[in-house]
């Protein structure tokens, strides 16, 4: 089996076929809350990619080399949420120091990432399913890029929706949710894309 091909396929499948937002339902809150403007959704998406990657890189070794040898694997949720919360704080401080302009555009979204289920969901899913370190990285990369892709696409549609002539009761969130449903149906069409590829 070619490891590189498997790695790329794992990224694409967790990015599109098994998209975080539209089929695994992680991170719906920022998906609905921060998608009114394209710029802000781009900022949120990039910040999420950054934090998910860091969280994956830290949580998996933390679980495998500290929690399991210490005999307390059941403390994983508590440990992960602490890692993620401090990671978000650190990222904020780091960006503030080295790139104030980036901090200005990302700053307000950073605290929101702590309560984004996508981050904890990926970290928890990696160890719950017993993935290897490489698979975990592929999962993290695919999931976070999938989130970025969907939130930016969705915000582009939403800016159009705002001027569209929708029924009064559907204005705002309801029509956005129906749009998300149609996007989810579109992604279902990609299922089975890799069924012919033998690894």
């Amino acid at each position, binding site marked *: 089996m070619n490891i590189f091909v498997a790695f790329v396929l794992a990224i694409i499948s967790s990015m599109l076929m098994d998209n975080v937002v539209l089929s695994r339902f992680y991170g719906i809150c920022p998906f609905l809350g921060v998608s009114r403007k394209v710029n802000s959704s781009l900022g949120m998406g990039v910040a999420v990619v950054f934090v998910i990657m860091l969280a994956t890189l830290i949580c998996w070794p933390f679980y495998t080399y500290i929690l399991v040898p210490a005999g307390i694997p059941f403390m994983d949720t508590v440990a992960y949420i602490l890692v993620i919360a401090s990671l978000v704080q650190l990222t904020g401080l780091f960006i503030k120091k080295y790139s104030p302009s980036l901090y200005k555009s990302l700053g307000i979204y950073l605290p929101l990432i702590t309560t984004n289920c996508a981050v904890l*969901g990926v970290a928890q899913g990696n160890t719950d399913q017993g993935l290897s370190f490489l698979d975990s990285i592929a999962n993290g990369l695919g999931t976070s890029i999938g989130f970025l892709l969907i939130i930016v696409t969705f915000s582009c549609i939403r800016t159009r929706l705002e001027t569209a002539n929708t029924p009064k009761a559907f204005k705002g969130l309801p029509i956005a949710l129906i749009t998300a449903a149609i996007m989810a149906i579109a992604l279902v069409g990609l299922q089975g894309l890799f069924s012919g590829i033998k690894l």
Partner: protein
Amino acid sequence: MKREKGYTKKNFLKGIINENPLFVSILGTCPALATTKTLEAAIGMGILFTVVLICSSALVSLLRKVISEEIRTPAYIVIIATFVTIVKMFTNAFLPDLYSTLGVFISLIVVNCIVLGRAEAYASKNNVFDSFIDALGMGVGYTLALLSMAFFREFLGTGAFAFGNIFTFIPLVKVQIIPKEYVMSIFQNPAGAFIVFGLILAVLAFIKNRKEEYKAYLARQEKIRKAEEAKKAALATAANKEEGGNK
């Protein structure tokens, strides 16, 4: 602090109707979409969520004078995560089917905005009993909201209501209402979850709009009536004056 009468009842009911966490505040949407495939899963999620919410609210309220202002958010998160871990282990031990159905979403109660939101907004400022009632109301309201979504999804998606698949201690009951050939399986898919949630929000918005329109209509009628009365009065005084002038 003086308590107004019936405060406890109002405190309990506000979580169910006026401040429903899912349909009014739009919080905790992830489990609402992911765990509402069947009524049973929704009940399970609702109960686990309510237990975590009540325990963490009570503990946060109990420790509200101990936890200092600067470190309160991390402290709350640790409290919530601890209760989630306890609940997770209990579910794994006693209801393994529920545990495997809900999967990672039990752990994700930690990052459910409702729990942290109630801790921050209510439990950190009020006494234990009030926080308990508030958490109970919010939990019941959230569970009812989940059930209403699961009702439509299970009914339209499978045409049947099945019990006993997840809660294995009750006998398996399955009532097929719509024949199998006519069900819309899209409602069991992720897309169906978005559609049901969107339609429920649209119906609620429609009812709210109607209420507001009716109120505006009543206000307009009242205004017209008052204007007419004023006109009549003005006419009457004018007529009186004329009469006086003729004399």
